[in-house]
């Protein structure tokens, strides 16, 4: 059966929008989850400053997950059901993690001082639980929810890799947004988690190329696309060179690691997307099989095209208000 007209391209548009939302989620909530995992046990003032750096943003960042999964639900309800059926337990654990860290953020600032440490640990633990579950889910998704020891092993590798990636971008965020001793520490964290991320990505790519010949031939049929991993690699090298020479006089280029991370995230995301398109559940269901009725997709598409630019604009506006190095967080 060949699909023509909007039945063909509406699902393609929606899978791209969903991809965009999830990419923005990975980057934006990525840095604040990373900051949560990196919270040090020894210095309360540094914890305060780290949390202050993400304070105005984390809420909106997390909303991208709701939009990404929301678009999956709206546009591809059958895939949504299938994916969440297979991922029931990791989804539950991720939600518990997100709940814990989301509320810890607010409770820590309002409870009596002796309870604050407890909420800080909750924040750290919740962040870690959320990233590990997300990485595990990506791993299980990639192997098509196969139930074997090899698949579980791969998913665990992915869990570690994604967590390292979040720490990487979280550290880079701190290098950009803080100064003094904390910034020095953040630079060390970023470098370490950068190496872990690179190793993780290399391992995941290797396993995928060996284990799935379809993906291998897909990439080498279009060699020009190899520029994507190349860009990611170059970004990693740039971050590594910068951090090796850190601190730089006058704090020049404190944004380099963050932008580098951004490039790596985008490259990894495109690589993943290209490898699996048009499948929305690898090997089982493509975007056309999973799609909703065209009437519904049109209705939501019109709104999306109007509202999404507005969201982007006021998000930029909010980042501009809190531009520059983080100052102490006060409610007034």
């Amino acid at each position, binding site marked *: 059966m060949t699909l023509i007209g909007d039945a063909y391209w509406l699902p393609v548009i929606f899978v791209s929008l969903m991809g965009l939302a999830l990419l923005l989620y990975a980057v934006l909530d990525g840095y604040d989850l990373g900051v949560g995992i990196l919270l040090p046990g020894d210095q309360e003032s540094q914890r305060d400053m780290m949390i202050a750096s993400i304070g105005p943003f984390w809420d909106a960042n997390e909303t991208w997950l709701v939009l990404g999964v929301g678009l999956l639900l709206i546009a591809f309800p059958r895939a949504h059901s299938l994916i969440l059926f297979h991922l029931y337990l990791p989804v539950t654990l991720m939600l518990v993690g997100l*709940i814990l860290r989301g509320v810890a953020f*607010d409770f820590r600032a309002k409870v009596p001082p002796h309870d604050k440490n407890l909420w800080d640990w909750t924040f750290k633990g919740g962040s870690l639980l959320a990233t590990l579950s997300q990485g595990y889910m990506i791993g299980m998704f990639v192997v098509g929810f196969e139930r074997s020891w090899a698949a579980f092993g791969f998913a665990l590798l992915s869990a570690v890799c994604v967590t390292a990636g979040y720490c990487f971008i979280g550290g880079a965020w701190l290098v950009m947004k803080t100064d003094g001793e904390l910034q020095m520490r953040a630079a060390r964290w970023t470098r370490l988690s950068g190496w872990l991320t690179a190793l993780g990505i290399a391992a995941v790519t290797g396993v995928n190329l060996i284990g799935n010949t379809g993906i291998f031939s897909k990439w080498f049929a279009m060699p020009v696309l190899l520029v994507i991993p190349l860009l990611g690699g170059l970004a990693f090298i740039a971050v590594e060179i910068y951090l090796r020479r850190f601190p730089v006089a006058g704090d020049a280029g404190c944004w380099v690691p963050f932008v580098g991370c951004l490039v790596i995230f985008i490259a990894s995301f495109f690589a993943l997307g290209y490898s699996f398109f048009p499948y929305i559940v690898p090997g089982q269901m493509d975007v056309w099989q999973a799609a909703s009725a065209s009437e519904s997709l049109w209705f*939501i598409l019109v709104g999306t095209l109007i509202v999404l630019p507005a969201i982007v604009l006021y998000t930029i506006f909010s980042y501009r208000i809190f531009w520059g190095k983080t100052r102490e967080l006060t409610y007034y």
Partner: protein
Amino acid sequence: MLDTFLLSRIQFAANISFHILFPTINIALCWFLLFFRVQYNRTGDEVWMRCYRFWVKIFALSFALGVVSGITMSFQFGTNWPGYMETVGNVAGPLLGYEVLTAFFLEATFLGIMLFGINRVSPRMHTLATLLVAIGTGLSAFWILALNSWMHTPAGFEMRDGVAFPLSWWNIIFNPSMPYRLTHMLLASGLTTAFLIAGISAYRLLRGDHKPAPRLALKTGIFAAAVLIPLQILMGDLHGLNTLKHQPAKIAAMEAVWETHSGAPFTVFAIPDETARRNLFAIEIPKAGSFILTHDWNGEVKGLNDFRGEHPPVKPVFYSFRIMVGMGMLMLLVAWGSSWRLWRRGELPRLGLKILVAMSFSGWIATLAGWYVTEIGRQPYLVNGVLKASAAVTSVAPANVGFSLTLYLSLYTVLLVAYIRTLFVMARKSVLVDRPEDLPTLQEKLNPITQTAHYRKNTGGVS
């Protein structure tokens, strides 16, 4: 061993009950904050800003709890009720999508500015941020209640091969029960927040807080409640008429009416017995039921026996309805009594303050009870007349659902305790913090009585 269906139901009920507590506060609290902010802009009196600062923290905390429990909700559709989206996803999906697009981002982004941006943006921008967050919470309520109401009174669609397809988005969104349910919920939110503000402020006064801010907040809360409660009773009545028209089985369960008859009595209290299909120990007011429901002493009320096998469980709906109405009456009494006293004497006695503290969370009880009436009242259907709940449930193993349910229940218990405790901790903290609030406010400076008091204090009481 409990089955997946029952466990999923308990889990969804627990999730949604926990979740609704926080939006119920926040939908209205943000408008109260806007009121404080605008009053400050208008009068320049610091006391309004102190009210803002205290309540914006509670807003932030409630917002965080609302967001995280809301994310959990959105995942539940896929994890536990896949049949829901597969059957009516073409209708439900876009409504949920619009909620995320028009409301969630707006709230979350401008909340950051509202909370932490006060020294970074102009007062006008900060006021605008507060307004946008308030609009965001309102839009969120609009979309989710449109969807919820559609599940009660579905319209504007057709079924093709067992899947719902949209015909008219206008009819889907503005389905017959939507305007009533939305207004009823918005008023419920206003009342819940009004009583919370009054209760926490009363607590501060009882703890010896002599600053003007809690007194002002107390007044704001009580007067708002006094205005809103009669509106809510009127709205509840209209909503009831609407339900009678579209969901007679729900009304029959609310009133525990078994046989259809004209001039039905109003049952003040009874123990409905579903196996014998009659009421035990019933205390009834003759013909009042027909009058309340149809506004006619001899109006016909359909009985449960007309809907055998298709009506909701009677007991929970019947009792929840009575709890809601009872709480509403209590709110009316307290709000009007306190207003009258405030009006005449300018302040409340300690007993009055204690009653208000006890009523701090009365809105939660009434709102939850109301939602139980409407949601349990829709059973056995998930979408009235279209999809039964039992047809939508997942095939995930019961052990997995049991595991997640246990996690959620323990988490929610801890969080609820922590939340309530924190509200009172914050109130106590604000009693002790004297620094900026020690300064006389503009209100006091301009008030001849307090001016003399200051003068006396400053001259050692000799004048």
